[in-house]
C-alpha cells in the first residue's frame, strides 16, 4: 500500500470526503469538504470517484513525502505548491516520483486547497464517511487534524490514469464569489424592512474565529426582532417557532444565516450544529456553498437575494456544467 508521510501538517489539514448525510437525528452534521466542488473535481482529475477522500488544507499548506510515488492533483486555492522545488500547477494532475517532496505555503487566493491522490486517502470509515468531524473527534484520521509525523495510507488503484487538467473555462466558471446569493431564511419575516435593507445593503467581513462550524461576520449589526411583536401582527402567518419568550430551537440548514444576540450574522457551515435557537434571516444557496468554503478571515462579502426558482436553476446549471465534457481535458 502506498503512503503519504506528513512532514509538516500546515495550519489545519483534515481528511475530508463529501460528508455523512442521514445522522441528523443523532445530532451529527454532515461535515465533508468545505469546497466540495474542488474536492470532486480533484478526484476526477486523478481518476477517482468524486467522493473519494482527500486532504483539505486551510490557509497554510503542509509538506508531504511520497515514498512510493503517487499521482496527485491540487485544487481549490493556490498555496504556492512546489514538488522538489519545481512549481506545481493547480488543477493539473502530476506525478510525484518515489521520495519526492510536495511543499505548500500560505494561500495566495482563498481559504482551502485540496490534495487529491489516485486511490484516495484510506481511513477507517465512520458512519459511512471518511470525513473528519473535529468538534466530536470522530471520523477522518484519528478524528483530528493532521500532525507532523503522521503516515496516511492511500487506497488501491490500478496503474496510473492519464494526466488530466481542468479546462480554463471550468476554472473561470468555478471561481469563488464574494457576493453570496441567498434565499429567505425561515424567520426572515421576523425582521422588518429596515433590517432587511441593512442586511442586503451592507458589506460584511469574515471574522478571524470562523471555522468549519460557521463563519462569523463583522460589520453592521441587525437589530433583533422584538419578542412576540410580529406574531400578533401576522397571526397564523407568523413563524410558528416563536413561542412565548422567543425562539424555539429547530433544525438548521447548511448555509443558514443566523442572527444571534448582538446582531452580527453567523453563517452555518459544513460542521454545523444540527439545531439552533437563533432566527435565520437568510440562507446561502447551494450553488454558492463552494464559495463559502473559500472565504478567508477579513474577506469582504455581500448578500444578494434570489428567489427559489433562481436558486434551483443556478444549482442545476452548475451540476450540468460539472457533468459536461468541457470541464476535464485529457
Amino acid at each position, binding site marked *: 500500500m502506498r503512503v503519504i508521510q506528513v512532514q509538516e501538517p500546515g495550519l489545519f489539514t483534515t481528511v475530508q470526503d463529501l460528508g455523512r448525510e442521514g445522522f441528523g437525528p443523532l445530532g451529527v452534521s454532515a461535515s465533508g469538504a468545505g469546497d466540495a466542488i474542488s474536492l470532486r473535481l480533484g478526484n476526477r482529475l486523478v481518476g477517482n470517484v468524486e467522493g473519494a477522500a482527500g486532504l483539505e488544507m486551510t490557509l497554510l499548506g503542509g509538506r508531504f513525502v511520497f515514498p512510493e510515488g503517487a499521482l496527485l492533483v491540487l485544487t481549490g486555492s493556490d498555496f504556492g505548491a512546489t514538488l522538489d522545488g519545481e512549481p506545481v500547477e493547480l488543477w493539473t494532475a502530476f506525478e510525484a516520483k518515489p521520495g519526492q517532496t510536495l511543499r505548500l505555503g500560505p494561500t495566495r487566493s482563498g481559504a482551502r486547497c485540496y490534495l487529491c491522490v489516485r486511490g484516495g486517502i484510506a481511513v477507517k470509515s*465512520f458512519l459511512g464517511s471518511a470525513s473528519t468531524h473535529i468538534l466530536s473527534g470522530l471520523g477522518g484520521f484519528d478524528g483530528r487534524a493532521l500532525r507532523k509525523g503522521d503516515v496516511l495510507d492511500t487506497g488501491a488503484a490500478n496503474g496510473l490514469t492519464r494526466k488530466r487538467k481542468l479546462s480554463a473555462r471550468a476554472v473561470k466558471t468555478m471561481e469563488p464569489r464574494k457576493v453570496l446569493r441567498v434565499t429567505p431564511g425561515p424567520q426572515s419575516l421576523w425582521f422588518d424592512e429596515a433590517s432587511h435593507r441593512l442586511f442586503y445593503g451592507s458589506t460584511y467581513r469574515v471574522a478571524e474565529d470562523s471555522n468549519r462550524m460557521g463563519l462569523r461576520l463583522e460589520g453592521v449589526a441587525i437589530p433583533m426582532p422584538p419578542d412576540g411583536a410580529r406574531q400578533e401582527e401576522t397571526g397564523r402567518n407568523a413563524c410558528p417557532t416563536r*413561542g412565548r419568550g422567543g425562539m*424555539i430551537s429547530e*433544525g438548521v440548514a*447548511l448555509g*443558514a444565516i443566523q442572527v444571534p444576540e448582538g446582531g452580527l450574522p453567523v453563517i452555518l457551515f459544513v460542521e454545523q450544529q*444540527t*439545531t439552533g435557537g437563533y432566527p435565520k434571516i437568510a440562507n446561502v*444557496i447551494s450553488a454558492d456553498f463552494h464559495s463559502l468554503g473559500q472565504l478567508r478571515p477579513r474577506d469582504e462579502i455581500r448578500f444578494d437575494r434570489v428567489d427559489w426558482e433562481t436558486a434551483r436553476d443556478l444549482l442545476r446549471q452548475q451540476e450540468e456544467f460539472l457533468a459536461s465534457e468541457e470541464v476535464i481535458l485529457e
Partner: protein
Amino acid sequence: MLVPLVAPCVRYTFAGMDTSLSQDARFQCASDQSLLVYFGQEITRHAHRQVMKLLRLLQLEPVAGIRNLHPAYCSLLVKFDAPRLRHEEVEAILERYLERLDEVILPEPRHVEIPVCYGREFGPDLADVCAIHGMTPARAIELHASAKYLVYFLGFVPGFAYLGELPTGLVTPRLATPRRRVARGSVGIAGNQTGVYPFATPGGWRLIGRTPIKMFLAEQDGLSLLSLGDRVRFTPISADRFAALEKE
C-alpha cells in the same frame, strides 16, 4: 434593493374535516435544499409526539431523495436532493406521510439513569444557581435528580440530548457569556431544559455537575447513549464513585 416582505414560499396544510390533529402541520422552506415541518407554535408533548412519529415513519419507509432529518421540539427539518426534488414535491410526499401519523406506533420509551457528581469542580455554576434561587446545594441537587426527563431531540453536537422539563424551582437563564470550553460530561441547565455535553465544546448552559458516563460512543457500541423519546433520571454520586466509573 427591493426586498419583498412576504416570503414566496409559505404554505399551509389545514386539518381536514374528519381527520385528527395529526395533519395540523405547516411547511416552510428553510433553504433551497431543505424544508421545515412545524407542528404548532409551542413545545407540547403532543407536538413532540408528532415529530417523533413523522421521523419514525420516514425512517421506516425512507423516501428516495430525502437525505437527512433534523428533529427538534416541535419541528422536523427535511433535507432533500436539490435540484432533483422541489419543495412542492417534498411537501406532497410528506403530506401522505402526515396523513398516516395516527397509525404510527412509537416504541416504548427506554429508561436511562445517568450518574452525576454535582457541584465543586464538577459543577462550577451550582453555587450561582443556588444563590439565584435562594436554596441550598442539597436542595438543588434533590430537585434536579427528582425529575424524570424526556429526551426531546439530539442536536447541537453529536449525542447532545435536550431534556425537559426542569422542575420550576430550578428554571434558570443561560449564562450571559458562553464558556469557550465546557468539560466533557458536564451537566448543564438553561431555561427549563437540562442536558449533558458529550464532548468538550463551547457552551452557555449553567453547569451543575458532571457524569463519568460516555454520552456518544463508537459506531459498534451504538453511538448515542440517548435517543428521542427516552426517559432520563439523574442519580447523584460521590467524587470517588465518579473516579471509579470514569476508569471503567
